[in-house]
């Protein structure tokens, strides 16, 4: 599709239409219905579900679908955000606005022990993610006695995710055993658990990155402005453009923050998330840009740079 697409400046979100005919469903309508079905199964089967809200575009779609699933009621479970203390400021603002807009209960959890011990992305390298994300998530799930944690992971993101079930079984230590997953047939999800075991639920399993953006466009779903290009202060570091979001980022000798027109393709902790130079400042422009891109979206996250097996290992340990 390279070079087949002419730039377009104005494009209005289009709604409706695809729901008009009951006979034929487009792929987006099918994906939407599948996700809604999954949400309702979770609400019906579990005692203490919660939605792991990561603030990114996938989470935005997740919330939008949850709202649809329970309409006219409100979303019947709390949103959990694991705050490492190093998220972009705009993410935190967006998070709080979103919870208010949807009238949803928001739980924010930080690994206080890790914070007190001075764990930062700069001092602890890969262990930072273990402590401030993986550990923190386990702490929170245990603390709230959660038996089902809903997340926005998609199978097209990465190879070990491509193997994961929609209802993904975790033992009491939150471990995923990829060699011994429960069979999962039709849409008959097995929600039965022994005490202490839990399920991670992925309603967006079958969505692709293009689906997500097309749906955001079609449904006019709000996303964090960091996805849109604008001049932001960045430094070049290990091949990534790191945004200087506050004054806690230690600058290496010779590093000078400079303004560049950048946007983010995926969001995480600002010192670990690479920006890309871009002019895409609207959803259509992002889609257009994506159609020309030649790298996959996870590349902008420092966490995977090491090995292909990195994500699988994290998941076995209980990382989302």
């Amino acid at each position, binding site marked *: 599709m390279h070079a087949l697409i002419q730039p*377009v400046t104005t494009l209005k979100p*289009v709604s409706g239409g*695809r729901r008009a005919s009951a006979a034929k*469903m487009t792929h987006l309508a099918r994906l939407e*219905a599948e996700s809604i079905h999954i949400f309702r199964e979770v609400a019906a089967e579990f005692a203490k579900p919660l939605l792991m809200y990561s603030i990114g575009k996938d989470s935005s779609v997740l919330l939008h679908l949850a709202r649809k699933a329970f309409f006219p009621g409100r979303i019947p479970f709390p949103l959990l955000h694991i705050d490492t203390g190093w998220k972009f400021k705009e993410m935190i603002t967006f998070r709080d606005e979103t919870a208010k807009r949807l009238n949803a209960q928001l739980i924010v959890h930080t690994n206080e022990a890790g914070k007190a011990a001075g764990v930062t992305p700069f001092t602890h390298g890969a262990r930072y993610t273990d402590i401030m994300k993986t550990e923190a998530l386990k702490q929170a799930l245990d603390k709230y006695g959660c038996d089902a944690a809903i997340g926005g992971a998609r*199978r097209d993101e990465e190879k070990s995710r491509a193997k994961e079930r929609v209802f993904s079984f975790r033992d009491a230590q939150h471990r995923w055993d*990829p060699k011994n997953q429960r*069979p999962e047939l039709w849409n008959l999800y097995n929600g039965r658990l022994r005490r202490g075991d839990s399920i991670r639920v992925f309603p967006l399993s079958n969505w692709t990155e293009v689906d997500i953006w097309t749906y955001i466009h079609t449904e006019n779903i709000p996303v964090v402005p960091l996805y849109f290009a604008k001049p932001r202060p960045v430094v070049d570091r290990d091949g990534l453009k790191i945004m200087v979001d506050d004054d806690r980022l230690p600058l290496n000798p010779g590093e000078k923050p400079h303004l560049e027109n950048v946007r983010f393709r995926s969001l995480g902790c600002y010192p670990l998330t690479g920006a890309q130079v871009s002019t895409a400042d609207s959803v259509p422009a992002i*889609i257009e840009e994506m159609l020309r891109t030649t790298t996959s979206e996870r590349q902008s996250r420092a966490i995977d740079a090491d090995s292909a097996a990195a994500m699988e290992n994290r998941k076995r340990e209980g990382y989302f």
Partner: protein
Amino acid sequence: MAAVPVKPAASQNPVESPRTLEQFLAQQREIDLLRFITCGSVDDGKSTLIGRLLHDTRQVFDDQLSAVANDSRRWGTTGEVPDLALLVDGLQAEREQGITIDVAYRYFQTPRRKFIVADCPGHEQYTRNMATGASTADAAVVLVDAEKGVRVQTRRHTHIVSLLGVHNVILAVNKMDRIGYDKAKFEAIAGEFVAYARKLGVQNIEVIPVAALTGVNVVNRGAATPWYTGRTLLEALEALEGLEVARTDGLKELRFPIQLVSRPDANFRGYAGTIASGDISVGEEVLALPSRKSSKVREITTADGPLERAGALQAVTVVLEDEIDLSRGDVLVHPDHRPTLARTFDANLIWMGEAPLLPGKRYEFKIGSRYVKGLVDSIQHRIDVNDLTTREAEALDLNGLARVRIALEEPVAVDDYKLSRATGSFIIIDLLHFGTVGAGMVIAPNAAGQRASSDVVWQPTRVTAAIRANQKSQKPAVVWFTGLSGSGKSTIANALEQALVQRGHHSYLLDGDNVRHGLNKDLDFSEGGRAENIRRIGEVSALFVDAGLIVITAFISPFRVDRNRIRERIGDTFIEVYLSTSLEECERRDPKGLYVKARAGEIREFTGIDSPYEPPLAPQLSIDTSKQEIGATVDQILRYLENKGFLHQADPGL
């Protein structure tokens, strides 16, 4: 999707690629979805084929391609050529062992259609994962290696695909390069496969010669098979039609399983769910099953506004006119088009548990949004995938296929799976570890000969010893102790029974105390009386075995002929345990002072003194209780019972 134009794709698509973003988005909103699986034997080239499809439809990103180039050097099997299979084999164990364990889902699209590919593992031991992938598929691409031809796994997978109601099957005869693109060999394989698939009742079969490694006839045609005039694999996948029909499999009648009762406030009560088949309109009369309450549709609510009418696969919330009390698991239907309401029905079953399926054992069944407890009443026959013959079976092992009769504790609304996947399918859940241990497809539930009415309370067709025993998770047996007076029979028998009960088994101990005073009160100690005594104990044991119990007996039973008669009566669940403690030791113990009396002539015909004891010639166990502790003896017997499969071990579960 982003694109690496590695080489220009030959455009054979009648549908144009979008030229503008507007066109692209318009297309995104219009195109439909095809879900298919790739399956077949290990190493037939599934992963390579998917890698090739992704690559040639230009869905592969630069960083992914360079990662594959990296990995190829480490794990690859293709030498210098990048191993495209590594685009899909995701788990470490898979790459290390060079095999596929679980289904991997891949996504790609062409201007015509979105595709979800489920790449299924080829090994027989991972059949349950293959079935997972196939259960949601619209079509199946079955691979064979052109050099090896149709194999057991080819048949097994095709069979499962047909059982799961996938009507479109494409056979990709792969590695054509290895047989020099030989037309005759290709046609021989095609002929064999088509014959097999037809027998299974597969509706649409297409056979395509391909070479995944080089890409021949996958996306692009190539010059290697000039004799082949049919479609490439991608063309075939793009052309498959009638999927919406296939997906709801023809049932036009309304089935709306209620997932959730929505009660956000006192003014609203709605029933949320996904329409499984047919459609529903405002104003229509609907009936809820199994409760048989009826009402009219007042409103069909969605977050995007109310609908007048909603159809299959749509997720909606239905509001009724009347305040009737429905709950999750009820199914809304039109009163004139009801599904069968049944407690018992026949089904095809794929067994997925590590422990075998045992008729009579209680499981939980999930059907639609309903959980019901029940059991597999009987296995009518198991199916041999090789030649499709059927044979009798008492149990069904991991990956086994069988036709069974299901008996549930409450009636459920079901349809023939062939007509409706959503209301004709169920999974079976183990009640101890809660893993999914089976998947079933309902067979014509309203057919004659099946007790389909909910008014008939379930009666097992025939309660067998096996059914009773399966309920207790044990295999019935008689542990028959024999040995001199004082050899330790009662002591060991009691200790054994305690150990069994502790492990949750159901046993019964027969000894002098509970037999002599009642059942055998009329018998004396004459030779005839003794023989009759043992005969009756044997008969009672046989009845208890039939009741599913583990029977323990503790009698001297000195004569071989008496014991052998009982062995013949009971069969190989008769376990003779000879306590070989010597006469000297027994006399030394003499707990009841009987030996003293016998030696003094006060008791006549006392075994070992003035009446013979005939030791067994081939006892299952022979133990001298003067040589080891009671606990050790009990352990030895328990171990024997375990090894012989009398005590079912706990299923490790999933």
